[in-house]
């Protein structure tokens, strides 16, 4: 899509919800749309599912521009997108099964066919035995599972989840994310997650797009972002941590690695540089099922920056000087993966 959206509320100045933005969502991947509230991420979602039309530019799904389509055609085009709304948005006076049936009922499917499909989907999300329960009898996680089943009922190619896990405890969040990942793999779905929770991004997203003040400020593959601590996304994926000050005569170096590195790399690095290397602190997270870490080391200031970086590279590590008395230009050292 390449679109912008401005709201014109009566009697107040126009609100630019989304500045003209170009964004491609790659098929088959999980794209996380990140940002604080008011950053424009929900507007992106509403433009994609056709609930709002862009003020400028266009939104295309599978090459079809939906932004100027008449209402009926728009409905057909957006049927490819299953939507999970914030807070599950279940109909309180319908059972779990009837909620899952809703999109099929609207699209005119026969009663028996939609019953069967709804039962199949409830089983898929692990709620077979709750088919007859009303939303008030379900837990937050169960409601969200029903909402996921409902979003999938019309066999969409895309799944758009707006804050699908907000308000859930971390255990439930994890199980919902696991379910989304399984569904993505089984059904080869393209998933768009609108979220402000970094755990969601680390757990599930292939790509992350950061919005701020209605503008896209950064986008990157999550595994790349984890390796670039100077980027905004990098700092979100692996947040800055407190570290001990470097001892006199040493410089703080940062080492980031995003794939499996044998744990003996520190003695190995010590040996290669022929120096004692204390660990000053660090952070480790699991991103998309792989451990990603950033550690801070104190390396003697006397060693040439190129030599240190080279020693790291030989071990499959990216080493960057951070503070101390390192020469400023050494910050420009870029290393291949």
């Amino acid at each position, binding site marked *: 899509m390449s679109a912008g959206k401005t709201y014109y509320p009566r009697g107040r100045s126009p609100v630019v919800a989304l500045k003209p933005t170009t964004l491609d969502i790659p098929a088959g991947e999980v794209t996380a749309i990140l940002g604080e509230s008011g950053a424009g991420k929900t507007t992106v979602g509403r433009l994609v599912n056709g609930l709002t039309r862009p003020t400028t530019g266009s939104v295309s799904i599978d090459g079809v521009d939906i932004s100027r389509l008449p209402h009926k055609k728009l409905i057909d085009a957006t049927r490819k997108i299953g939507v999970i709304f914030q807070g599950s*948005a279940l109909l309180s*006076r319908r059972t779990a099964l009837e909620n899952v049936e809703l999109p099929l009922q609207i699209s005119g499917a026969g009663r028996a066919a939609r019953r069967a499909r709804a039962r199949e989907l409830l089983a898929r999300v692990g709620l077979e035995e709750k088919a007859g329960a009303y939303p008030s009898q379900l837990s937050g996680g169960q409601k969200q599972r029903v909402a996921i089943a409902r979003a999938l009922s019309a066999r969409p190619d895309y799944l758009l989840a707006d804050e699908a896990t907000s308000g859930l405890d971390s255990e439930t969040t994890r199980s919902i994310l696991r379910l989304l990942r399984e569904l993505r793999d089984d059904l080869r779905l393209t998933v768009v997650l609108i979220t402000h929770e970094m755990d969601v991004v680390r757990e599930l997203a292939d790509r992350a797009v950061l919005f701020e003040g209605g503008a896209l400020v950064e986008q990157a593959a999550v595994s790349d972002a984890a390796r670039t601590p100077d980027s905004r996304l990098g700092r979100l994926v692996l947040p800055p941590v407190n570290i001990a000050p470097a001892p006199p005569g040493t410089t703080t170096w940062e080492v980031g690695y995003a794939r499996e590195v044998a744990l003996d790399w520190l003695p190995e690095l010590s040996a290669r540089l022929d120096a004692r290397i204390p660990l000053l602190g660090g952070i480790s997270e699991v991103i998309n099922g792989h451990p990603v870490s950033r550690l801070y080391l104190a390396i003697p200031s006397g060693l040439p920056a190129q030599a240190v970086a080279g020693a790291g590279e030989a071990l499959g590590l990216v080493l960057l000087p951070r503070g101390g008395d390192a020469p400023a230009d050494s910050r420009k050292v870029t290393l291949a993966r």
Partner: protein
Amino acid sequence: MILAQNTSLQDALTLFWPALLQTFQMAAIVLALTTVIGVPFATYLFNVSPFGLFPRYHVYTVLSWLVSLGRSVPFLVLMAAIVPYTRALMGTGIGVRGAIVPLTLGALPVVVRLVESALRSVPPEISEVAQVSGASRLRTILVVQWPEAVPAIMTSSTIAVIGVFELIAVAGVIGAGGIGYLAISFGYNRFDNTVMLVTVVGLAAIAITIQLVGDVFARILRK
């Protein structure tokens, strides 16, 4: 000179039963009319509001203002003010027939606001679920908005129904018949304490019964 002559309880009750029947007759007609006119009107009003399916700022402002105006006129004044129109429409300004028009007009704004606020209590995402599934506006109203608003409507309809009985009692002043008329013509004008007591107890019993029935319905609907 005897100013007050209290009727016996038995005589008061003979007067009371037909009056009760008239009151219920009026209530049934007025409630049916306000529902048939009020629910669709409230649905339209809600959906042209900024929270609705098809916001129309100016239409909403005008209609909302009209409803507020209707609520702000005291019922007694409204009733008196529209007597010529009532006569033209119903052929009479008094009795059950004469009371229907002012009662409906008096109850309508209340019903409209109650239904509108019940619709507003339905989270907008729920309507959006239907919209992204491809539902037309009418379908969204029928499948999502109305069913979801029913518990809230039921809870507030107790207030509306009791309100209608109150209006009917007030309408007794212009000779609408029913319990209100009984209370005015016997209890007030003739200082008849027995009739007054019977009507007060009767009206209280009606209000309490409506409240109880309403609460039971609301409990059943809020699963």
